[in-house]
């Protein structure tokens, strides 16, 4: 299914206007002009925030900004919707990729007039390429751990009440698919667009969880948001990209499959998985940094220790 040149915008048509559609959303049966796509996108984000009780206008939101289309589109939409949202950029030290994405994030924060906090991983621990070489861990795994750690730590130190990430529907479907393939119950139990605040963890939310990756890119382009267009060099061959390609084929043949898979999980499977109060692992405080951890020493402090050993 595709958009034919000359198709009128569904909303304009209902208002007896003649504007042509430039976007077709088969899973919503909508053909939209640029203006109505932008307002549709922002309404959908607002509805998602309210549906999952993510935050209110009284909250201070810290957006995890990578310089990519999703985080910048999310930040733009939240500010336009009137939320009190600043950004946090973690400089991972991945060569040109980090340099370019940092400049784009800084430029964007100036454009929208909001604060961008920056954490330099080289100062805190080491760059991701050095970490990858020093410890026997894939780059993406170490990267995910340090990003989660510093997002939470910085949000607390800077006094924000919620952390918002730009995970979109395709990201959530790819993770859900991967976790379902392996029946990873512990991960499935936690796959929800809101992770409530608990023992040292700030509340974390995903307001783009019902927005597809293409919708997020379209919103960025329509709003002249300059974002990093090339991939992180470490993401090559990532299973999430493979899963996304598989799901794209399904979606082409049966529009709405991704949304059905994800929202069906949230409505039917997630409550079942969390029906019984299973025993939770006790959260402790890391004896070195004081951050929440399931072990005496948290994964980031362990990482720091390993790097120190390698340096010596």
């Amino acid at each position, binding site marked *: 299914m*595709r*958009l*034919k*040149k000359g*198709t009128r915008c569904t909303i304009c048509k209902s208002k007896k206007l003649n504007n042509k*559609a*430039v*976007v*077709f959303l088969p899973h919503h049966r909508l053909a939209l002009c*640029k203006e109505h796509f932008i307002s549709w996108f922002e309404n959908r984000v607002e509805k998602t925030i309210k549906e999952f009780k993510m935050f209110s206008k009284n909250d201070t939101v810290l957006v995890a900004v990578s310089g*990519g*289309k*999703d985080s910048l589109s999310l930040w733009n939409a939240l500010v336009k919707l009137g939320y009190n949202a600043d950004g946090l950029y973690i400089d991972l030290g991945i060569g040109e990729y980090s340099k370019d994405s940092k400049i784009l994030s800084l430029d964007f924060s100036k454009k929208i007039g909001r604060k961008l906090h920056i954490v330099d991983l080289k100062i805190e621990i080491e760059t991701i390429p050095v970490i990858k070489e020093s410890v026997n861990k894939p780059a*993406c795994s170490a990267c995910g751990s340090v990003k989660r750690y510093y997002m939470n730590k910085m949000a607390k130190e800077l006094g924000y009440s919620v952390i918002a990430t730009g*995970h*979109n529907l*395709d*990201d959530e479907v*790819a993770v859900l698919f991967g976790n379902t393939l392996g029946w990873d119950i512990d991960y499935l139990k936690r796959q929800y667009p809101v992770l409530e605040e608990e023992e040292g963890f700030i509340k974390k939310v995903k307001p783009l969880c019902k927005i*597809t*990756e*293409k919708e*997020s*890119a*379209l919103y960025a*382009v*329509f709003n002249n948001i300059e974002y*990093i*267009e*090339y*991939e*992180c060099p470490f*993401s090559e061959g*990532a299973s*999430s*990209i493979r899963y*996304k*390609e598989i799901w*794209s*084929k399904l*979606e*082409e043949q049966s529009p709405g499959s991704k949304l059905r898979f994800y929202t069906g999980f949230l409505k039917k499977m997630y409550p079942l998985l969390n029906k019984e109060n299973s025993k939770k692992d006790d959260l402790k405080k890391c004896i070195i940094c004081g951050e929440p951890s399931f072990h005496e020493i948290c994964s980031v402090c362990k990482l720091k220790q390993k790097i120190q050993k390698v340096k010596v």
Partner: protein
Amino acid sequence: MVLKVKYRGKIQTVNIEKEKVKAEDILKALGLSSEYAFVVKNGEVVPEDEVISEEDEIKVVNAISGG
């Protein structure tokens, strides 16, 4: 028709053996689907059946990323 296309931050040359080229032909030549990719012609997002000429400034956006 030989077109210069900006894709993933780089300029690529795309050769399409057709006289009348449409946006969907460019996506196909790059091995992309309109389910996750789209064409921007002279700064405007265009439908898949939009006709493209050699003079147009073309950018292709592939929304799939590693996440």
